[in-house]
């Protein structure tokens, strides 16, 4: 499937998890797609951890403000009702449980809700930035990612092998193939992508999946 379509499918599905008045922090990359699919009847406020609540759309080319960027370094605009604050208060908001939802990408995530998304030893060490605080502090942590890596290998594991970002904090995983919830009993398959079979899904998921009798589809 086309990357843009995958992104859109995941973004649309996660946007359905939002409620009116929610305060949301989107990680860079795929998670930003969620902002494009907010249901019309609700209003949500996006935080960027560098010190703003109420991130607006990208500016028109030529009207960028050099002092107005998001956590990924991209130029932004502000929404009506926005506020600026220092980054220490920004993380007080995050760590203090005031963010209703964060959506982040993952290198690996496992059936215990453990997440690895900040480094690959000996290869890639960008640093955790704000990810560890976000995953530990947000009320709900949703992982947005392609189900498998570029070699078709599973990223949803029994147990993460990469250095963790945080232990047991993930609530929901949304991929191009499935919606899965971390529960006390294990990883519960909630929905399957239209056109994907359970066998296909199992083949590219290392984690044990709890599969309910009634399984709705999404993304049709």
């Amino acid at each position, binding site marked *: 499937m086309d990357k843009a379509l995958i992104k859109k499918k995941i973004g649309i599905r996660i946007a359905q998890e939002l409620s009116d008045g929610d305060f949301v922090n989107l990680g860079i990359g795929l998670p930003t797609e969620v902002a494009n699919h907010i249901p019309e009847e609700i209003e949500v406020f996006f935080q960027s951890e560098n010190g703003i609540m109420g991130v607006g759309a990208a500016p028109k080319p030529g009207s960028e403000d050099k*002092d*107005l960027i998001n956590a990924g370094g991209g130029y932004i605009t502000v929404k009506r009702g926005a506020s600026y604050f220092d980054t220490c208060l920004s993380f007080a908001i995050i760590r203090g449980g005031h963010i209703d939802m964060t959506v982040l990408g993952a290198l690996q995530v496992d059936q215990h809700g453990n997440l690895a998304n900040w480094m690959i030893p000996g290869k890639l060490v960008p640093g955790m930035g704000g990810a560890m605080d976000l995953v530990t502090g947000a009320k709900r942590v949703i992982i947005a990612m392609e189900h498998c890596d570029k070699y078709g290998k599973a990223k949803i594991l029994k147990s993460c092998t990469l250095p963790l970002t945080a232990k047991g904090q993930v609530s929901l995983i949304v991929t191009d193939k499935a919606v899965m919830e971390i529960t006390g009993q294990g990883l519960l398959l909630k929905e399957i992508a239209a056109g994907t079979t359970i066998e296909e899904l199992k083949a590219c998921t290392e984690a044990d999946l709890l599969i309910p009798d009634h399984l709705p589809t999404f993304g049709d």
Partner: protein
Amino acid sequence: MSKIIQLEQAISLINSGSSVLFGGFLSVGCAERIIDALVKKGTKDLTMIVIATDYDNKGVGKLITNRQVNKVIASHIGTNKATQTQMNDGSLKVTLTPQGTLLEQIRAAGSGLGGVLTETGLGTVVAEGKQIVNVDGRDYLLEKPIGADIALIKAYKADEKGNLVYSKTARNSNPIMAMAAKKTIVEVDEIVPVGELDPEQIITPGVFVDYLVPA
């Protein structure tokens, strides 16, 4: 007593081996003119404390590219190849710290706290070598204060007493870092007479500011 000094004076306050808190995030809200002057002067063996090491040729990254830094404490180095190269070849010591934790550590130094307890990093490599304190049955990492010799701050406006106002997301870590150094030096776009800033509008009170460097 005026706090206004010129760029050369500001640079002369930063010695080889100094620890420096750099305000800014991905080069936005960063004291770029002071950094350029530091690069020109070539002051060595700096300890850099910063949210992110910016870019190879923009923001604090220029000091790393020019090999003036031998220790970095930051939360993100992914946008700066020089940091990663020097870390891998062993010439640069890098401590990666979660961003919220790093900011609380700096705030603790500026606020006279002996440390803070956080759950961020528990069960990860960040916890290695750190004291774990149990409070009412829950574990927390004890994170110690991080202060420095110098803070390099970027403000949009200042009055002559060092009261500061920032611009939009260029505020970022500046108000926190301004609290935590022995000497706080501010690069400022515009210096206005005392009394021109509304007391409600001031984000960093002049009590935290030692020197102002006009643009």
